[in-house]
């Protein structure tokens, strides 16, 4: 899909009055995450996780600074940062992920004879869809696949991606906003520091406006 907000980058506002010190500290840290670093998942689990992340939240291949989604998920597991509740039918987060990654990879090997991260994207999607629908084999044991997919896998991966500035720019979100918030709140109004949408035939105009965001 064509870029809806061409040239828009929330990071352009990093030194503007839309960001405060605390925000800069937090986002700088996030931007500095090494996409390959994994302290929780083993070298064996890591490629499976990376491949799953690439299917759940695919990023444009030409993106200069892609969001390090797998590394962010790994960090969450490493710090064991829970959300404050756990469905009784699921084991604790760390155990759930370990078992699920093993099950997914195992499923790929038994179906196609290759590791999950070696099969084609199409087959990966098929397999993930099967997990989402709960149509899985016995590799899951008593770990409910459908529930895991919905409450853990999607939750952890999607929230990692949409917690990253690259995703904020993609969806035209205003990004951090303190001390400066927003002035114009009515329909079809944007403040000069917001993303400009490329309406059909107005891509150049939007790009020019987004270049001035800061």
């Amino acid at each position, binding site marked *: 899909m064509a870029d809806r907000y061409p040239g828009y980058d929330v990071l352009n506002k990093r030194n503007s*009055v839309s960001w405060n010190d605390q925000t800069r500290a937090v986002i700088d840290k996030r931007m500095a995450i090494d996409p390959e670093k994994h302290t929780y998942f083993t070298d064996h689990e890591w490629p499976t996780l990376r491949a799953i992340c690439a299917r759940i939240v695919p990023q444009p291949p030409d993106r200069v600074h892609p969001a390090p989604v797998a590394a962010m998920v790994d960090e969450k597991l490493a710090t064991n940062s829970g959300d404050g509740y756990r469905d009784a039918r699921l084991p604790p987060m760390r155990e759930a992920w370990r078992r699920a990654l093993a099950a997914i990879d195992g499923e790929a090997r038994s179906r196609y004879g290759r590791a999950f991260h070696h099969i084609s994207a199409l087959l990966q999607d098929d397999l993930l869809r099967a997990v989402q629908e709960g149509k899985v084999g016995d590799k899951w044991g008593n770990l409910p696949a459908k529930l895991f997919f919905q409450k853990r896998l999607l939750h952890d991966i999607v929230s990692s991606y949409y917690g990253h500035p690259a995703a904020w720019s993609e969806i035209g979100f205003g990004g951090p906003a*303190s*001390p*400066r*918030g*927003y*002035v*114009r709140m009515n329909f*079809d*109004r*944007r*403040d*000069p*520091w917001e993303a400009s949408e490329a309406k059909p035939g107005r891509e150049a105009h939007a790009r020019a406006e987004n270049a001035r965001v800061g």
Partner: protein
Amino acid sequence: MTGADPALDRLAILALSGTAIAMLVRPRHVSALARSPLLPATSRLTRNVARSAARQLAPPPRRATAPRLAHLIARLAPSPAATQAAGRRLNSSAALLAFSVLADSAVEHYRGSFHNRAMYIPLVTGALTLGASVFGIADKRAARHPMRDTIYGAAAVTGLAGLGFHAYNILKRPSGASWLNLFYAAPIGAPMALALAGLLGRGAEKVRDTPYRRRPLVLGLPAGRALAAVSAAGLGGTVGEAGLLHFRGAFQNPFMIAPVTIPPVAAALLSAAAAFPGRIINHLARWWLRLTALLGFAGVGFHVYGVSRAMGGWRNWSQNVVDGPPLPAPPSFTGLALAGLTALSLIEREYDG
């Protein structure tokens, strides 16, 4: 045709030209109209109305002077310097109001993203009015200027049109004419500042054009009283606008009560002085008007403080100057108060004879 009112002259010329054109384009309709009883009836009515109006409003009868000659005499032997000064002071009032409108509508229409092309018009008209008024202040000639007249007329019309646009903006939103929309849709009273700039400017030109040994008249009325009425009404409207927005701000700062208490008293005293002038009431009116004029400047100071009071203060100017208390709005009070003071001085001279 009487030479006392060029406006009527122009109206007559317009009417005659219109008739001429109609005769060329639609001769049959014109002759049908001429044959109907409508035309004599209308002309009878017009004559009667004009006569009774002239009786009520006419200055004391003077020797009739040919219009061109009167104009020439006015140029060679102008009315007293005081009258000219009064005229130019009215130009100042128009200037202040025009400046206030120019700056305020620029910020507010920028906030509105100029989503309707017409939102550029008050900026253009305001700038022209400001320019014309400054020219008028500098121009020491004791006469009206047709360009200034036209610009002031345009200002008046633009202001009234703006009122219509703003009313539409309010009424088209959900809940129509509700408190919420009065607070946040287009400010209903703001365009009137431009209309007032235009009216006071026209008054300025009329006063400047007062012929020798005539009393200054505006719309056929003694200038002082007419301008007092306009100023008092203008003050009342501005009080309403400030009151509405300070109500929106919950009068959270005690000083916000000033623009809804001081100017109304000034307007009341001015109106009283116009109706029943006397030494004491004129004195009181003068001082309250001066206080109101000062309030206009103080208001800017308060609004500057208000911007600094918002999150991020002046550093967050891109939000707070647009969102915050309008910096150029309070000088409207100054412009109107000055006009009131000018009206007061004219009233005093009217009664001195």
